[in-house]
């Protein structure tokens, strides 16, 4: 893990993998009290940003000495999301995976996803857990409008669109779960560290 100072009050902790980010993020939340005040802890693809810290260089040196344990598979709250596999890209995704479309729900349903980080839009979680053989390219031409609640895949990630927006991910299904509601506590269903299981409606 490499600490990189960002301006006068932030610190970027760089790792080599999504798994290391997950472990480091969990440890930072556990030991938040030792950080001496931090406004934002923002995990991303290979980094965790600590924003609003008093002395980023000293904090970075301190965290670099931490022993960061791998997180237990059962760590983090579990959210079950009901999905209808009715996405317009379902057949294409199945073809890319070399399976029949009817097998996709069982494949996706068998994966233990975890929210690695949020971005793109409020409440849009990037879910990791897809084995490498199921990683997918983005669509060559993004859609101008993807409906809210679309379950989508791209690269190493799965995600659910919190509201209707343009998007280039492959759409395999739909959920009625409200993944983002600023009037609700918590506003985001998919906060970093949350574990997610997709269950087929009626299955």
């Amino acid at each position, binding site marked *: 893990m490499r600490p990189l100072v*960002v*301006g006068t009050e932030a610190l*970027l902790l760089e790792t080599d993998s999504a798994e290391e980010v997950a472990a480091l993020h969990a440890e930072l939340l556990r030991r938040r009290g030792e950080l001496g005040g931090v406004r934002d*802890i*923002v*995990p991303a693809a*290979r980094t965790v940003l600590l924003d609003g810290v008093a002395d980023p260089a000293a904090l970075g040196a301190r965290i670099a000495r931490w022993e960061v344990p791998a997180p237990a598979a059962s760590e983090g709250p579990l959210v079950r999301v009901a999905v209808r596999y009715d996405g317009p890209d379902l057949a294409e995704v199945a073809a890319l995976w070399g399976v029949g479309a009817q097998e996709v729900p069982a494949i996706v349903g068998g994966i233990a996803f975890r929210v690695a980080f949020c971005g793109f839009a409020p409440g849009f979680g990037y879910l990791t857990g897809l084995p490498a053989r199921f990683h997918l390219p983005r669509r060559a031409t993004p859609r101008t409008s993807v409906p809210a609640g679309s379950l989508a895949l791209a690269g190493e990630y799965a995600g659910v669109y919190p509201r209707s927006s343009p998007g280039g991910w492959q759409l395999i299904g739909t959920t009625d779960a409200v993944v983002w509601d*600023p009037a609700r506590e918590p506003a985001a269903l998919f906060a970093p560290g949350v574990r997610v299981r997709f269950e087929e409606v009626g299955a």
Partner: protein
Amino acid sequence: MSGLLVLRAGALTTVQDRGRPGLAHLGVPRSGALDAGARALANRLVGNAADAAVLETTLDGVALRARAPVTVAVTGAPCAVRVSGRPAAWGAPVRLRAGAELDVGRAESGLRSYVAVRGGFAVPPVLGSRSTDLLSGLGPAVLSAGTVLPVGGAWIGPVRGAGALGVPGPPSVLVLPLRLGPRADWFEAASIARLLRSPYRVSARSNRIGLRTEGGPRLARRRGGELPSEGMVLGAVQVPPDGLPVLFLADHPVTGGYPVLGVVPSGRPLNAAAQAVPGLEVRFVSA
């Protein structure tokens, strides 16, 4: 009847307070007034807490009618202030009678004026803030004529007689102190040196998300490839593939995939950036 009726919304007027810090991990931008110093001063003049919600105008001000007696103050970009057609003070508390019309004129220098009302603008908060976030769409809608803005109870002290004397006006050159990192090593050293001795200009494509630059040398990358998305801070100077630096302002995305050359500290430099009009000269200096 209470509150203020919007008569003329102006080019882009939004409600802004201190925004939504602390929610970046959920994909929520910070938002908030771009010129935090002008917001705090406007609030102080009318006896509000420093982070009460104010109006942020863009270039051509705003006009409001008081539906009940209120005290207001205009700060930020200097401009003509009129009350029912008569000249009134900029940078000082102004009393409006019921029915009086406040006209905040076109910015004479700078870009964004701020209007505080004693008690604060009390539109419904979203995630603890009344700020309009133009990137993610959180918070109240951009002001439009006919909207009534409610007034709250966010005052904490008396109205101050002291005005905005001594507050520096918008500068003729925008100087941005740049602390290199975290991705300065993605760029040619000679190219960074060139950036630090060359003038740029503020691009007309700038907005609350970022101040774009043009007219200066393009940064040359010493390593290709893509940067996996990483957390972005307020004041980050990101360099997209065209090589022209973009300074991230309050509505910036929480993560980004272009390397950050350096960071401009918050406070005065970012307040000055909020007042930078298109075409203004920009200088990056090593900090």
